[in-house]
């Protein structure tokens, strides 16, 4: 096998959020569809939550790419913590209004209320990592959603704190909440193989036996981010071996030792 195959396979698992890399899995597809349906509904807010690495950002990116052609959508992958900056950005992106000075919440509310927008095509604001927004700003976001002139899709980590935010600020307003979970071993196998096959790395995709997938799932607990990191390191080791110690690569299956070495390197195994 050529070294370039391992290199290509390695690069497939770079931890980046790119809608193009979105892997269609059965369960994920169902969730994605239900999220799309929720967006289509006249809801004030939709909550997307799950543990880190479960694919929330990827979901948002994919949805953003999908909805961009059909409606006004704004995706904020990183939180805008300054209130004025946040409202100015929203005014710019939603209504193409540029403000050089300060824009407070009252001023922005007036701008939003003055907009004549059809409810069917309500602009959608996607806020990733929403757990980083302050409580007062979250309260203002809630008030903005009450105007029914703008819709919010909020993605946050599923922690106790985030649960509180969800309950206290948005309990009455959230009409739909979607939970993302880690992949099962079967889903993980499909995820890895689909990802590799998308990049035409068919040889390396066939190297993942059920045994190696089980081991990877055991180490990563089906977390997509951890899996990406692990397999990236795994192919990095393969690249090293094929260049320096080719005799270390035996058989046509991924070596469990190399998987464990990758896990040690990524911190999944404490050795």
């Amino acid at each position, binding site marked *: 096998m050529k070294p370039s195959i391992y290199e290509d396979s390695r690069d497939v698992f770079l931890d980046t959020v790119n809608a193009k890399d979105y892997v269609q899995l059965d369960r994920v597809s169902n969730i994605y569809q239900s999220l799309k349906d929720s967006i289509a509904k006249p809801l004030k807010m939709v909550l997307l939550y799950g543990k880190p690495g479960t694919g929330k950002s990827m979901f948002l990116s994919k949805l953003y790419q999908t909805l961009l052609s059909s409606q006004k959508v704004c995706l904020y992958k990183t939180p805008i913590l300054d209130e004025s900056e946040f409202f100015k950005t929203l005014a710019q992106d939603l209504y193409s209004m540029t403000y050089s000075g300060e824009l407070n919440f009252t001023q922005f509310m007036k701008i939003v209320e003055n907009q004549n927008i059809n409810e069917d095509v309500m602009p959608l604001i996607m806020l990733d990592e929403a757990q980083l927004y302050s409580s007062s700003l979250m309260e203002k976001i809630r008030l903005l959603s009450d105007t029914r002139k703008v819709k919010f899709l909020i993605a946050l980590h599923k922690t106790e704190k985030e649960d509180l935010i969800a309950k206290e600020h948005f309990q009455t307003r959230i009409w739909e909440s979607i939970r993302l979970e880690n992949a099962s071993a079967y889903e993980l196998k499909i995820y890895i193989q689909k990802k590799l096959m998308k990049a035409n790395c068919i040889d390396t995709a066939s190297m993942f036996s059920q045994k190696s997938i089980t081991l990877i799932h055991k180490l990563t607990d089906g977390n997509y981010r951890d899996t990406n990191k692990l397999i990236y*390191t795994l192919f990095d*080791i393969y690249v*090293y*071996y094929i260049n*320096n110690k080719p005799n270390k690569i035996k058989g046509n299956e991924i070596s469990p030792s190399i998987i*464990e*070495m990758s896990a*040690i390197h990524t911190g999944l*195994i404490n*050795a």
Partner: protein
Amino acid sequence: MLNVNELEIRHKKYKRKLYTPYFKISMLIVAVVALISVFYYNYYSGIKPEVNKQAVKQPLIVEKNEVKPLKIKTEENNTTDKKINSEVVIAQKGEQKIEPKEESTIKQKRVILSPSLDFMHNIKSENLAYYRDEKSSEPKKRQKKELVKKKHKVVKKIEKRKKAAITADKKSSINIQRKDDEKDIKDVIKRFKTNHNPALSLFVAKKYYKLGVYDKAYNYALLTNEINNNIEASWIIFSQSLVKMNKKDKAIKTLKEYIAYSNSSRAKQLLDEILSGKFK
């Protein structure tokens, strides 16, 4: 850049760490299994030897039973020897009448004496071989012959000793015995002086009377009466001593007084004997 060499080392350490508990557990299981197997092996193998031991011991026990009386006999033999020796010593003191009895007892014991000390020596040297050979008749006969010979030897030795004792006895005199008696009396007198026991003074009186020292017998009988005047024997010795000292009247008087006091039948008998002249 990934440091794969370092990663390999870390991986080896991790593997070692991972398998250590399994290794320990497996070693523990192996140790436990080994211990159990050793225990059962010892347990079952321990029974078999015991059975064998019993099988071996059984004849030994029988043999021991056979040996035991032999031992006793030999001991008896020794004791008879000792007895003979002691009797010889006694004979030296002059008790000639014992001799025939000794001979008869020795003769009796001679019959009991089947194996001798030499026989024991044979047991020690030959051990079980003796008992194995015992089944055969020829060694038995030999042993019997040997035993008979040994018996004769022992009898001869004893006879020689007796003869020597008899000759020695002839040479010895009664003075020796008397000296001993006097020594005994002196010891008793010493004891009497310390505790004034009337039994001791009476003993001394009786001894002196037997030895014919009537004045001393009289004195100690009198001492006894002073301490305790209810001892019949003391009064008797006192009266007998008086008669022996040719004080017959005083003796009769004393006895009469004592009879009046105690109504002693023995005193009456003695009085009758004195009066009739039987006791002089």
